[in-house]
Structure formats: C-alpha cells, structure tokens
C-alpha cells in the first residue's frame, strides 16, 4: 500500500501513522522534517516539478516496498510557503520487523533529498535565497546503492 501526496495543505503525522499501522505490521517507523526555527529563517518556500515529483516519489516508494517487504509506505511533501516549526515532509513505513521499517524510512528520506524535484527558498527578513544542495545529502543517498 503506497500513498504519495504533494500538497500545499498541512498534514497530520498521527493520522498518517494510524493509516499505515493496519495490515498486521509489527513495526512502523516515521520521519518528519520541519522548518527549523534556530537559523533566522522567517519563511521557507518549496517549489516542485508537478507530475515528475509524484512519479519520482512513487518510484522510490516502490523500491522500498520491494527491498524491505513493506506492508505500507507513505510520503507526504508540502509545497508552497511555510513558517518555522511547520512540517515539510513525512515519511512512514510499516514492516514485519523493526530493522526493515527503520532502514526503509532512512532510505526514503535520504533518496528523496537527491532524487525528487523539489527546491527550497529561504527568506530571512527581506532577503531570499535558494538553498544550495549539500554534498552530505549525496553521500547519504549513495549509502543505499
């Protein structure tokens, strides 16, 4: 059961977790990314490539389901403007055993960072800048090859 959503609306991690707990899984893992509020950012804006984004996320989820025998994988990613403290992304995985759920969750967020067409722009007061890609993200994504 794969659930992929790219949306401007906020989402509820508790509801997402509840949805993937069914089906007899023994283990559910999640990752939630939030707009940090400790580095002066006043607004974070997410742009994406409609159509390709959903396809890229679905492809990653299908890889994870096959590799770790997941009973469920959910990816929700917000786009548009967000304030500090707001949730950007949710990844949830359900599997028979804990290592599979946790590894699949790490895989999805690591690979999402380098393989899904999203771009972040940070605004600090009057100044906006596009966030640079990080080589540490490339390294994290490579772990799973």
């Amino acid at each position, binding site marked *: 059961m794969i659930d992929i959503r790219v949306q401007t609306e906020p989402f509820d991690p508790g509801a997402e977790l509840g949805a993937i707990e069914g089906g007899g899984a023994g283990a559910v893992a999640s990752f939630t*990314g939030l707009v940090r509020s400790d580095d002066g950012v006043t607004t974070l804006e*997410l*742009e*994406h*490539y409609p*159509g*390709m984004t959903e*396809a890229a996320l679905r492809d990653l989820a299908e890889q994870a389901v096959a590799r770790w025998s997941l009973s469920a994988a959910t990816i929700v*990613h917000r786009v548009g403007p967000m304030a500090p403290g707001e949730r*950007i*992304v949710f990844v949830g995985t359900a599997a028979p055993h804990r290592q599979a759920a946790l590894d699949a969750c790490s895989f999805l*967020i690591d690979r*999402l*960072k*380098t*393989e*899904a*067409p*999203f*771009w*972040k*722009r940070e605004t600090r007061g009057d100044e906006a800048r*596009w*966030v*640079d*890609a990080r080589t540490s993200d490339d390294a994290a994504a490579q772990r799973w090859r």
Partner: protein
Amino acid sequence: MALDLLYFAWVREAVGTGQERVELPEGVTTISALVDWLAARGGGYAEAFAQPDRIRAAIDERFVPLDATIGSAREVALFPPVTGG
C-alpha cells in the same frame, strides 16, 4: 522540432519564465548543446546558464545527465540540484 522547456527555482527566476516552447535548431541534439544555445540568447538566459555544471536536467520527467540526447523528447526541464525533504 518543437520542444517544451520548463525552468525551476533560480533558473526560472533568471530566465524570467517557467515554461516556453522552442524550435530546436539543427545541431542542438544534447542537453549540453541546448544549455549552450540558451546561454547564447544573452540577458537572463546567459545568467541562468553561465555555469552548466550547476544545471541539472530531466527529459520527459526523468533525470538525465547533461550529455543525454534529446531525441524525440516532448519536454525538457532545466533546474538547479534538488533540495527537498
């Protein structure tokens, strides 16, 4: 050949539009050649494509390297390295 071009993030801002349809001239058969051809338009295009190693591309919604052949693509997107999650 008519081709839809999409631009995202600072590429879009520099170019000044998110989407346009172009007629590819003879000889522009790869993404690299397309980037060079767009840069030669000057202005915001020159700015957006001044450093091709900062550009990433997708053909028909799939990431491709810059030396990929455009072939019979309907849509090419040009953008910075992705930064989601």
